[in-house]
């Protein structure tokens, strides 16, 4: 059967214009990664092996809509989620400041401000609203809703694309050897700036360099492909030093599952456990050696009927948070979030003590516009402690930190089957009587 030239041209046009209907939400809720295993159960044995071992390491994942933006969307969502995990509003607001300053890079390569501000505004807005609720957070529900609003999501992706493009143009030496004979200008014009053009390795590298790494966030990409082996191959981009002076142990990692042409977001079991109480990342808590009364890292403070409007406590945002984990080594990771609750209702709180200036915060909140910067109220350390004792939950969940894991092995720990409270005998410790011997402790 012969086709006329017109018919061929018509078919070519149809084929050029063909856009596959991508299914599913822009970003899905977390789901069991066993689903990936069952998806590949009938596939090539290499895939079967690799997807069978995958859920052992990575228990959950989110699907990202495969519409040409999935890699960018996965990175952007991971960036926001990692910041949320820090539960540290000053870190998130620090990102607002840093991304705002990156506008200078956009200016320097000639993007018109009135055009790019529509995109950057959405990113900054979402960062600010994320910071506003911290340290209490909803495990990403608000982020998920925003990323499923195509207007917001597209704008954030475009912001990331433009920053990446501007970064490549201003750091051309680092990238020019990888563009396959294209100039950086042309590469950005064809691979980075157009909407719905999928991220490639070079774009991924540049986006990490410009946005993700300086935020103190690591990236891990797991490649599910036909290469031989039992497990998926992986590539790691360590987190850079955070631009804020607060210590950061790089715990937050964006994990992406790459299948040829597509990215999804993966989670290790511990990534999810850590979500509600990320204060465990603070080194002071890791050094904790005192008695441990609290063991839960999953205190459900989100179910306590918070009035979010009244919860934007400026002092808490900067001084309050670091205060919560700097005043007392007894405070475990579970504490600081619930202890934050009563601070809001200080006026009617019978345990509240008169206002006093908190100690100097470890993290200085950057100077920014917004309600969080108006210092209306600051919590005092005493208040934190009093209320902390009020809300001490004792829950049976497994311990999270090294110190806590080992605590159960001691007989002195209430979890131990042979629990036996230690009784301090001054006589055994010191030579207080004439007959006492220093080494006869607990033998009587």
């Amino acid at each position, binding site marked *: 059967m012969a086709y006329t030239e017109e018919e061929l041209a018509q078919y070519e046009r149809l084929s050029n214009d063909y856009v596959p209907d991508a299914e599913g939400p822009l970003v899905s809720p977390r789901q069991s990664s066993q689903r990936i295993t069952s998806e590949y159960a009938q596939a090539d044995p290499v895939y079967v092996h690799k997807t069978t071992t995958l859920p052992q390491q990575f228990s959950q994942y989110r699907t990202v809509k495969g519409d040409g933006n999935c890699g960018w969307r996965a990175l952007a969502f991971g960036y926001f989620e990692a910041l949320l995990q820090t539960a540290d509003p000053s870190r998130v607001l620090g990102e607002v400041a840093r991304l705002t300053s990156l506008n200078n890079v956009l200016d320097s390569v000639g993007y018109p401000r009135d*055009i790019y501000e529509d995109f950057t505004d959405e990113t900054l807005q979402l960062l600010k609203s994320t910071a506003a609720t911290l340290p209490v957070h909803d495990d990403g529900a608000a982020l998920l809703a925003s990323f499923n609003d*195509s*207007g917001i999501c597209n704008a954030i992706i475009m912001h990331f694309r433009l920053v990446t493009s501007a970064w490549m143009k201003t750091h051309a030496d680092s990238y020019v050897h990888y563009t396959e004979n294209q100039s950086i200008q042309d590469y950005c014009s064809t691979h980075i700036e157009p909407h719905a053009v999928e991220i490639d390795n070079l774009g991924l590298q540049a986006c990490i360099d410009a946005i993700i790494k300086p935020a103190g966030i690591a990236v891990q990409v797991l490649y599910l492909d036909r290469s031989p082996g039992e497990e998926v191959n992986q590539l790691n981009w360590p987190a850079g030093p955070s631009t804020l002076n607060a210590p950061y142990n790089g715990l937050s990692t964006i994990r992406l599952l790459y299948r040829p042409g597509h990215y999804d977001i993966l989670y290790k079991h511990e990534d999810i456990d850590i979500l509600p109480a990320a204060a465990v990342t603070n080194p002071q808590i890791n050094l904790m050696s005192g008695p441990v009364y609290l063991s839960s890292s999953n205190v459900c403070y989100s179910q306590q009927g918070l009035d979010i409007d009244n919860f934007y406590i400026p002092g808490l945002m900067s001084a309050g948070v670091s205060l919560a984990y700097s005043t007392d080594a007894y405070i475990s990771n579970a504490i600081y979030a619930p202890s934050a609750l009563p601070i809001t209702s200080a006026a009617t709180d019978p345990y509240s003590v008169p206002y006093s200036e908190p100690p100097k915060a470890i993290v200085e909140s950057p100077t920014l516009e917004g309600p969080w910067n108006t210092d209306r109220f600051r919590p005092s350390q005493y208040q934190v402690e009093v209320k902390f004792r009020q809300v001490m939950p004792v829950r049976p969940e497994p311990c999270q930190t090294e110190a806590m894991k080992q605590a159960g092995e001691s007989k002195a720990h209430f979890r131990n089957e042979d629990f036996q409270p230690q009784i301090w005998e001054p006589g055994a410790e010191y030579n207080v009587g004439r007959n006492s011997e220093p080494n006869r402790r607990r033998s009587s």
Partner: protein
Amino acid sequence: MTKRITKEFADLQTEPPEDMKVDLITENDLFKWVVTINGPKDTPYAGGLFLVHVILPNEYPFKPPVINWKTKIYHPNVTNDGKGTMCLGFLRDGEWKPSSRMAAALEYVRQLMIEPVPDDAVDPAIAEEYKNNRKQFFKTAKQWTTTYAKP
């Protein structure tokens, strides 16, 4: 993104691209424009007045504007099917940049009148003629201009 469209439209009123005038098709719909183009000089379209509908999709600027020639035009990059579709280069979905302005898109349209892209043609016969028999192409295009694009 209505704000952006409002601003772009206003900018095009104060500073219209060469040979062009931009209006709304209906007064209160910012997403549907009608562009009046004076055929650029030194082209077979010179002396003609061309009407082009520019439809901004709801997803604008994440999707490109749709260009439809309402005035019949003899051009390798415009479909001759009553719709007058022109969709190539950065007007194409996969190549459109949300950071591009409508002014640039319109300027691109005008540029295509001056210099068609036969290698990305929708009408292969006209493209063939443009490449191999420029004289004949000019003659027909001019004829169409006087017939269909009367000012």
